């Protein structure tokens, strides 16, 4: 069966450290993968898109990697801040649909 897996347990890290979130998928061959941020009571907000032929994408303190062999994407936030605390969702394109993972809650402590 097709699955997108993100760590359901919250990730707690100290301010200034690098947060790394994982997105694994099975039985998909996505053309690209996206990451969204969702704050409580709000809709998801697009952060980054990485295509299947790209290994890495950066935007300010954010970095995403995409390994189609491992079927995995890693999402890094460097120099994390309490304001980065939120749920982060990965989403992959399957034909014309965008399929979302369950999200990982990140808590950054001062």
């Amino acid at each position, binding site marked *: 069966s097709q699955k*997108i897996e993100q760590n*359901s347990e919250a990730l707690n890290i100290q301010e200034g450290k690098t947060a790394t979130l994982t997105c694994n998928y099975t039985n998909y061959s996505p053309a690209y993968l*996206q990451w*969204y941020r969702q704050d409580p*009571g*709000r*809709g*998801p*907000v*697009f952060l980054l*898109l990485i295509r299947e032929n790209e290994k890495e994408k950066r935007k300010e303190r954010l970095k995403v990697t995409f390994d189609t062999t491992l079927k995995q994407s890693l999402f890094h936030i460097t120099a994390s801040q309490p304001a980065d605390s939120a749920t982060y*969702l990965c*989403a992959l*394109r399957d034909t*014309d*649909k*965008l*399929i*979302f*993972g*369950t*999200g990982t809650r990140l808590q950054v402590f001062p």
Partner: protein
Amino acid sequence: EAGVVQSPRYKIIEKKQPVAFWCNPISGHNTLYWYLQNLGQGPELLIRYENEEAVDDSQLPKDRFSAERLKGVDSTLKIQPAELGDSAVYLCASSLGRSPQKLFFGEGSRLTVL
């Protein structure tokens, strides 16, 4: 630029009652999506419109759910009758073009069915 607007933000109804949610996408976005998000889960697609045509409604429970996008702009999602299990957040999103390069979401409509 105005974002995706949804209303109401919150709705509490008793089971078997009808409910409707409204969405106004970003101006010029021809593709509109309705997603369902349960607590602790990711959004799940209910229906996707390209202009006024529903091009993917395979996940929409058609016995009680209906949607329309008249004139290819704003959209309404209706549930009739609502069941306890329909309690969730209903998210509307829009994008440019058919391929979902980047979705813009509204704040969502939180439904509680008692």
